[in-house]
């Protein structure tokens, strides 16, 4: 009878030992390989620190000019460019310049990492169904598991600092670019692929001349989503020692500073909107051939 009323469960001591065994083996792993892994990520750390310093040490008018130029060449829109200039002037005036630069640095590095890792994974996924079956659930986990859960092993392994923060951001932000690269390549018109095959194209020729160019709109949507998700991780990353707009937000939460929280939160929003609009209109312009009449 007791089987029906009470769920059959593992003995309390067994369960404790089981958890302990996992913890201990991971701790051993950390002890043995922690340093090697840390060294492995060193170049990334140097790059991030260098970029952050560059952003912070460059006089603000120059940064403003560069941002305005980038926005203009990305979007070809005067309105958006003026909007960006006003937003950044406001950010600086409200004393959020340094945090914004730090956030920009980590977002840029995270985006570069996600693109250079995510696109090749997406290509591999599109190439074989087996890879797709393996990778898809991993991406599901990365997107749905509470960030704090994977922060634990990351912090155990690398301690607190910029690199673990960057990793946390990347884990959360990489799935869209992988998914959309895979999807984009799979959606490439079968007739075009067949024609390419019939003319004797090799795998590399098909990939570079047909698949990637035709998947570009989707890949670009993936980049856009990745940037958005990276920005949304800024606050959580600040909990493990990443400088930027997340730090004051965190301080505002624990001290109930409404204005501080809202101001820094809005600065994140402004960055997000700018990245989004610029990258979207840039992506659209890459597709000049789609503009007219009959779509094939």
């Amino acid at each position, binding site marked *: 009878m007791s089987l029906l009323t009470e769920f059959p469960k593992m003995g309390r001591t067994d369960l404790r030992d089981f958890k302990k065994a996992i913890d201990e083996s991971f701790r051993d792993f950390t002890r043995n390989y922690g340093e090697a892994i840390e060294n492995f990520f060193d170049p990334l750390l140097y790059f991030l620190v260098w970029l952050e310093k560059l952003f912070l040490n460059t006089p603000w008018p120059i940064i403003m000019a560069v941002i305005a130029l980038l926005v203009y060449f990305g979007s070809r829109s005067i309105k958006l460019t003026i909007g960006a200039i006003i937003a950044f002037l406001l950010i600086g005036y409200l004393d959020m310049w340094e945090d914004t630069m730090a956030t920009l640095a980590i977002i840029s590095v995270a985006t570069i990492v996600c693109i250079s890792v995510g696109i090749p994974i997406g290509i591999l996924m599109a190439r074989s169904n087996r890879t797709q079956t393996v990778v898809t659930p991993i991406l599901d986990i990365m997107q749905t598991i509470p960030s704090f859960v994977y922060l634990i092993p990351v912090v155990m392994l690398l301690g607190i600092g910029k690199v673990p923060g960057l990793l946390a951001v990347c884990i959360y932000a990489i799935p869209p670019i992988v998914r959309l690269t895979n999807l984009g390549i799979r959606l490439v*018109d079968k*007739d*075009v692929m*067949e*024609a*390419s*095959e*019939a*003319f*004797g*194209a*090799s795998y590399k*020729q098909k990939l570079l*001349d*047909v698949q990637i*160019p*035709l998947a570009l709109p989707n890949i670009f949507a993936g980049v856009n989503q990745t940037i958005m998700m990276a920005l949304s991780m800024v606050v959580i990353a600040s909990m493990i020692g990443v400088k930027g707009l997340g730090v004051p937000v965190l301080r505002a939460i624990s001290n109930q500073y409404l204005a501080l929280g809202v101001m820094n939160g809005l600065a994140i929003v402004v960055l997000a909107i700018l990245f989004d609009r610029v990258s979207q209109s840039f992506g659209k312009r890459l*597709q*000049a*051939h*789609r503009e*007219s*009449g*009959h*779509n*094939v």
Partner: protein
Amino acid sequence: MSDIKVSINNLYKIFGSDAASMVDLVKEGMSKSDLLEKHGHVLGLDNVNIDVRKQQIQVIMGLSGSGKSTLIRHINRLIEPTSGSIIVDGDDILSMSLAELRDFRRSKASMVFQKFGLLPHRKVIDNVAYGLSIQGINKEEALARSNKWIKSVGLTGFENHYPSQLSGGMQQRVGLARALATDADILLMDEAFSALDPLIRSDMQDVLLSLQEQLHKTIIFITHDLDEALKLGDDIAILRDGAVIQSGTAEKIILHPADDYVTDFIKDINKARVLKVSSVMAKDEKIKGPEISDNVIIEDALQTVSQSGSNGAIIVKNGKKIGTVSLTDMIMAIARSTENTDSDTVYR
């Protein structure tokens, strides 16, 4: 025989998970529907044998589902056969390694597709040069050669347009130019003109025929349209349920249809435009009339004869009289036969 360019021998294609072991069943005579019902496999091609003559247009025609598009994809191995052989210039396509096959596709057989298969992100000129760029030919030469083909299909002035800016007919001209640009001897055309409207289609058929007069390619042309088959084909093979039910010249098929299916198929066509006077030639000394060549079609002969007011015509070949043809015989030949035209007959 040396004038055979492509020889398809005992080709079988079965779709399904265990196709290889089904071949023997089919060879023993199992029908398409039995194979599907009992074993869940689909019979795509059933013992196809076709010899394609060098520099001729071989039309393969059949209704949808007859396996014609499957068949043409075997020739450049876009689809792997279950059993059989395909010999091109003495080499068996099916025993080629991946690298050899790639080479074959690059330089020996190019293809034109029903849905064009153009690269939407490349301009017309770059689409035409696509086959050349795959071969690794340098850009300058590829563009120069492409320009020549763009001119010959009548697309001059559209080099820098994107495919989406062109009409269907013009897009298929790009497809044709792309296939011709690789200088392959064999041209595979998979329902190349079926997606075009009738006027444009007829236009493209003329383009193809006039190009063929200069180029003398070996063309394998797939169609479901009998008129197109008769207009283009030096030889025609009719495919049904994956099997060739009749092959030969247009005239042979019309005069001697192999079975009821073919008879039903050809009953609505304009025979006057296909049959030549030689097919109804006799030796009747009483007939007097104008002299006409033996390869004139009956439609034209009827006009000549009725204008002259005579009861027939004298047929000449190379200036020598070889026979006669009477007005009555010509009319009889093109009259729709009334037998075997039971319109309720359903073919699957």
